[in-house]
């Protein structure tokens, strides 16, 4: 018997003994009663359950992230979702409204206010004309403002959705709706659904990685990358682009790799005994997680290190060495997708341009935010393209809602700076790569950009499109929970075929 086996045996023996120590008569009685109840309940629930989910989507607890196949051959293999948390103003970036300029400074007409609710606007606000210079770009002639000089050069690579709508005017619920299909807590996020459905191509890396920048997590908190009722192994793994990529990834001093392996093996052995006794699949999940964590100790620092990228790539993305910033995250996202990560979710906070202070002003902070993301997101598209990855990587960009054509007057008083309130009726998002048409634009808003007049799409439509590009029919892709099948798009959604190539 080797040293290791001895060690394992001893641990297992100890666990067993301590378990026996708890085993009293009272315990026995309680357990027998519970056992009978559980038996009855099990058969009850078992007979209610349906077998609607296809064989592929059955949760394999021992191997939860094994690569799986989609129902039909999708065009995209991975997704990079760039979420501008706080909601950028479409009226200063993509939705050019010369008519709005004519109304600049005038009182907002009553017809636009009646029966509407805003987060902060009260009484009658003034209209605010576009605070940017717009030009038509590329062959598609898409309008992009001078705030995004780099992105303007690749307008022909993307498809714009000009009339996205939502029904939530506060950040947290709107972000939840965008990422989980419901404004309330408890539903799995898109990345969780996708890793649940497709697993991960690379067993040494998590399938769903989250990177944040802008100094703050999104308002909805970690629930926007939570796994909801899906097995917890599918939740997003938040990584950092400075310091250790994952907290506590490195062994503490004095802990050798062999010792780490031995202790993980021992823990798994105990867990296996536990599984033999209770049969709870979450235990197998836990074993798989330990093993993956062990492998990740080697693979993650290697992939997460953007310093091994050549200088010209750093220059292209405009990274900032040693800082947590959007550009670093974007470069990292490309590396992760290259290595087989399924879903990379980026959140960049700071787009909430109310006009309450210079950082949140349309004519100051907002411009700086644009400068922080412009170069990196442009480089991402071009870099994916030159590596032949854009064809199978879907890039999605957007906020959780839009901003009003009116200047915000918080509680009826004019804000000190130019700003816009949250707006649910129309905003712009764009998608690129992964089977999305190049240089297309879908949807249109009225002359002042207040509401959608055609090509209206919802968060569910966007989710249905993302799933579709990966090879899922959003109406068929379900998970059985609380006695009924749930889906990401709830009871709505339609893949936006108008922007598919």
């Amino acid at each position: 018997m080797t040293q290791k086996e001895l060690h394992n045996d001893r641990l297992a023996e100890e666990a067993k003994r301590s378990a026996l120590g708890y085993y009293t008569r009272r315990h026995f009685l309680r357990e027998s009663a519970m056992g009978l109840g559980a038996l009855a309940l099990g058969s009850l629930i078992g007979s209610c359950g349906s077998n609607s989910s296809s064989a592929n989507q059955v949760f394999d607890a021992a191997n939860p992230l094994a690569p799986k196949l989609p129902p039909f051959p999708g065009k995209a293999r991975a997704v990079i979702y760039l979420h501008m948390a706080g909601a950028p103003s479409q009226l200063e970036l993509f939705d050019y409204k010369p008519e709005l300029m004519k109304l600049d400074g005038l009182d907002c007409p009553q017809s636009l206010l009646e029966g509407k609710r805003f987060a902060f606007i009260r009484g009658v606000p003034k209209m605010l004309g576009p605070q940017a210079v717009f030009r038509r770009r590329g062959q598609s002639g898409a309008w992009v403002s001078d705030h995004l000089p780099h992105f303007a050069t690749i307008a022909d690579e993307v498809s714009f959705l000009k009339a996205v709508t939502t029904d939530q005017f506060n950040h947290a619920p709107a972000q939840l709706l965008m990422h989980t299909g419901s404004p309330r807590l408890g539903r799995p996020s898109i990345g969780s659904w996708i890793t649940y459905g497709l697993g991960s191509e690379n067993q040494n890396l998590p399938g769903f990685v989250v990177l944040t920048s802008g100094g703050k997590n999104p308002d909805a908190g970690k629930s926007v990358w939570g796994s909801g009722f899906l097995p917890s192994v599918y939740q997003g793994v938040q990584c950092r682009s400075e310091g250790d990529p994952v907290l506590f990834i490195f062994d503490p001093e004095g802990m050798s790799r062999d010792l780490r392996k031995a202790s993980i093996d021992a823990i798994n052995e105990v867990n296996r005994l536990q599984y033999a006794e209770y049969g709870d699949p979450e235990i197998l999940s836990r074993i798989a997680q330990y093993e993956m964590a062990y492998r990740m100790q080697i693979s993650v620092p290697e992939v997460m290190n953007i310093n091994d990228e050549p200088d010209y790539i750093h220059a292209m993305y405009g990274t900032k060495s040693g800082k947590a910033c959007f550009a670093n995250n974007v470069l990292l996202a490309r590396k992760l997708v290259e290595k087989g990560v399924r879903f990379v979710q980026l959140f960049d906070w700071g787009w909430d341009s109310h006009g309450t202070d210079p950082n949140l002003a349309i004519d100051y902070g907002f411009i700086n935010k644009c400068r922080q993301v412009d170069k990196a997101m442009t480089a991402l598209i071009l870099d994916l393209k030159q590596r032949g990855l854009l064809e199978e990587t879907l890039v999605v960009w957007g906020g959780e809602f839009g901003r009003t054509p009116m200047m915000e007057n918080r509680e009826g008083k004019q804000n000190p700076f130019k700003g816009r309130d949250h707006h649910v009726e129309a905003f712009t998002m764009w998608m690129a790569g992964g089977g999305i048409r190049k240089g297309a634009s879908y949807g249109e808003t009225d002359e002042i950009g207040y509401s959608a007049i055609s090509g209206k799409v919802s968060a569910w439509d966007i989710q249905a499109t993302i799933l579709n590009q990966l090879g899922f029919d959003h109406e068929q892709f379900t998970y059985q929970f609380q006695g009924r099948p749930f889906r990401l798009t709830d009871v709505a959604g339609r893949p936006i075929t108008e922007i598919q190539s």
Partner: protein
Amino acid sequence: MNIAIKEFIGHWHPVVVHLPIGILLLSVVLMWAARKEKTEGMRKAISISLLLGMISALLACITGYMLSISDDYDKDLAGWHLWMGISVAVTSALLYLGHMRGMYQRWHLPMGILLCVLLAITGHLGGTLTHGSGYLTKSLFAENDEVYVRKPLPNVQEAMVYQDVVQPLLQSKCYSCHNANKKKGGLQMDKPELLMKGGKNGEVIIAGRAEESEMIRRLLLPREDEDHMPPKEKPQPTENDIVLLHWWINSGAPFDKKVKDLEQPEKIKPLLLALESEPEEVMLQAEIPQEPVDKANKEAVQKLRAKGVVVLPVAQNSHYLVANFVTAHHFSDADMQLLLPLKMQLIWLKLGGTKVGDSGMAVVGELNRLMRLQLEHTRITDAGLSSLKSLKDLRYLNLVGTRVTASGVQQLKDLQKLQSVYLYQTHVSKSDYPALQQLFPKAHIDSGGYEVPILESDTTEVKYVPKK
């Protein structure tokens, strides 16, 4: 009788109609089978089945008549169907009486055969009424498929606005339910005068007033709305199609004008111009071969998996495979033989970053079903590329970060299905690209090396300076 009751009775027709077909056919078969002494016992069953057949034929006639008077059907076709149905009922009645009374024994079988012929004709007419003409044989003539494909117009300004722009839209999205045989809601759209006349509820097009036209109103209703047209399960017109129809109606819904004779707002011009090019096909799924293939050899797949290769079908219910080497960096030329047993199934191969080199390409060359091939950051050179000439179905080729040159890529000039070739960080020089592009006119040849310029604004911030 109340019209609602008539309609209710009429709606039983599709249920009842199958009974006489089955029962009467059975009775004729019995008559034929019971000719001989040996099978005499069967005769007893003939009369009862003839009786039941006759009654059900009669019921089918009555319900069918009720259905036909609630309009919606082509009068001609429905009339024929009705009379043929009646003749079936009469023939079966005669046969029944003849059989009961034992008269004209000799004529029974010929009459039975006549009955079968009448049944077939009636049934076919009925099918034509419900499913449209040509339904039965449609699948045999694939070209005449229901999906109508628009042909590009050589010069849209010279084209006829109705025949060339409007009619093709109506043809592809409306005619299937609003034609001479099937007039849903009493509306027939394939003749200009009938289109303008409208349906049961009145006009559908009010020339010059698109907003008030029922057709436009229904097109614009939410898809879930019961009144939305076309019905939500049918193919939908695109938004641009609706804009064109809207424009045509607002221009007075002319049938004899050319496009150039109508006023064209800015918004319409690009849509009209688009009609000059091939209709864009929206591919919702990635392309995979149409023909079925046998399931891959399980052992061969297992062997690859043991090497760390991710081998999976490209989709559920498909036997075509994708092999991904992202976690199999040590895979080398010596291991390549493992791919050969999967030659028929492999269509996507991701060898990027492995130790595979030129000699391994000989194996790849045999995988002639490949549609996507990733060889980025491998050791292959032009010599290896020459083995890939046999990959006739190749759509995507990634050679990023390899030592291939332009002359190496030129060897692949016969692979005309190539749609994209990635050559970033290869030994292909900038000056070679025009020639390569000529060699692959349909493909996207990507040289990479994109640069994002350095602007002052990249690193500076706009600062707010409070006024004093």
